[in-house]
């Protein structure tokens, strides 16, 4: 019979501190990466519009394909170790992680939103055009809000996925939740208990995110429930 010894974790105040700090780092980085990635993603979406220059939309498309077809860990190493060598400038591991997550999320975000945009019936665009709205106004006032509403569930799960990939940033030494778990397990050798605790923490945080997303959904898309 396996001997569960969870008290090996909370016996040491330092372990608990490390784990809580890890939670905070993971939440902070993924939230910041999510928001920045969303902004960059919207830029990528706009760059792919029908009226934007061929070169720009080609670049955006190439970027999205490159990011979506390479492993996150490769992107992370590229940003953390490759870029500093090229630029002769070194920044913190947290900054590297944030940049990698932003770049990664923006590509997925852009792709999902693009699918949402193509789901908008042409009648909407024609109606807006007949009301003398310009292309830009049609995009911002009519197409984008509906597209975001349509793909909101995919976007939230994409964000949850981003949060879970923060586990990988421990590879470059960012003290996130996974890093904290390994720190504790390396010292008390209670790997099973430690990773059970990590599992519970990750699930709890994701549930927290989902509660926020649900509230945000009701606030941002009040028309959804009655369609």
């Amino acid at each position: 019979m396996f001997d569960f010894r969870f008290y090996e974790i909370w016996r040491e105040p330092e372990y608990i501190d490390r784990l809580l700090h890890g939670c905070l780092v993971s939440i902070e980085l993924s939230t910041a990466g999510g928001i920045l990635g969303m902004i960059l993603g919207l830029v990528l979406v706009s760059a792919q519009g029908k009226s934007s220059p061929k070169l720009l939309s080609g670049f955006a498309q190439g970027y999205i394909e490159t990011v979506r077809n390479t492993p996150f860990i490769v992107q992370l190493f590229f940003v953390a170790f490759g870029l500093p060598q090229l630029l002769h400038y070194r920044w913190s591991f947290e900054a590297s992680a944030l940049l990698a997550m932003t770049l990664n999320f923006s590509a997925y975000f852009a792709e999902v939103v693009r699918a949402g945009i193509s789901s908008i019936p042409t009648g909407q665009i024609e109606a807006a055009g007949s009301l003398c709205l310009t292309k830009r106004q049609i995009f911002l006032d009519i197409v984008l809000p509906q597209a975001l509403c349509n793909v909101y569930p995919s976007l939230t799960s994409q964000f949850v996925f981003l949060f879970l990939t923060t586990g990988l940033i421990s590879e470059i030494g960012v003290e996130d939740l996974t890093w904290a778990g390994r720190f504790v397990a390396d010292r008390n050798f209670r790997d099973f208990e430690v990773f059970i605790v990590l599992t519970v923490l990750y699930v709890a945080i994701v549930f927290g995110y989902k509660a926020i997303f649900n509230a945000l959904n009701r606030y941002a898309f009040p028309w959804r429930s009655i369609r």
Partner: protein
Amino acid sequence: MFWFCRTAVKGPYRVQKGNDMSETVAAGPAVSIRSMSKWYGDFQVLKNINLTVKFGERVVICGPSGSGKSTLIRCLNRLEVHQDGDIVVNGVELTMDMKKVEAVRREVGMVFQSFNLFPHLTVLQNCVLAQRRALKRSKQEATEVAMRFLTQVRIPEQRDKFPGQLSGGQQQRVAIARALCLEPKIMLFDEPTSALDPEMVNEVLDTMVGMAKTGMTMLCVTHEMGFARQVADRVIFMDAGQIVEQNDPESFFTNPQHERTKAFLGQIL
């Protein structure tokens, strides 16, 4: 006469006009189409269309499906691009120049078969948006104008509902109010009652009859022959991309000239 489609308060962007009717008539026809043709790829949907519509005239266009009647009125605000001939609407020729297209769209309202209300905006927001964007009206003025037209179509109490909460007939009336909010000189209707339950057809037709009484220039694709008899000055019959026959409603229905028209009327009457 134009109390129905002109605002009392006008912003600096609109030229104040004394008498719309006389000036617009003097400016020429509302719509003038000369030997216009349109192709979808190799398929010619519109063949050498010639049509002039005067201001204040109410024209009903009918014909079998695929005859090009929707395409024809969609060309008038450049939702479709014609390839040959010219179209002049309200004195402006439709070309690739977006400035001209916008100038035309500002004066031409359109009502669609499938309503095409913006589902993410409330009824009031649907009516306010284009006024704010295209006419740069203040929020207060836009709201006042919107409420006036919502009252006109008899649903002011639904202002804060979303389109998804309304019946088809109500949605189409909001769509009419939304188009009127830009105070167009010409209204285009693309089968406005075809997507409605039979019970709701009349409430929309009544709204359109009311609009006709105000002297609005109307081009209406519809199969509502009762409506055509009641309000139309002229009925146009189209088949296979051509205008086959046009006449005043009385002669059109009682004494059609062409075999194709007779066959069509025999089917639907």
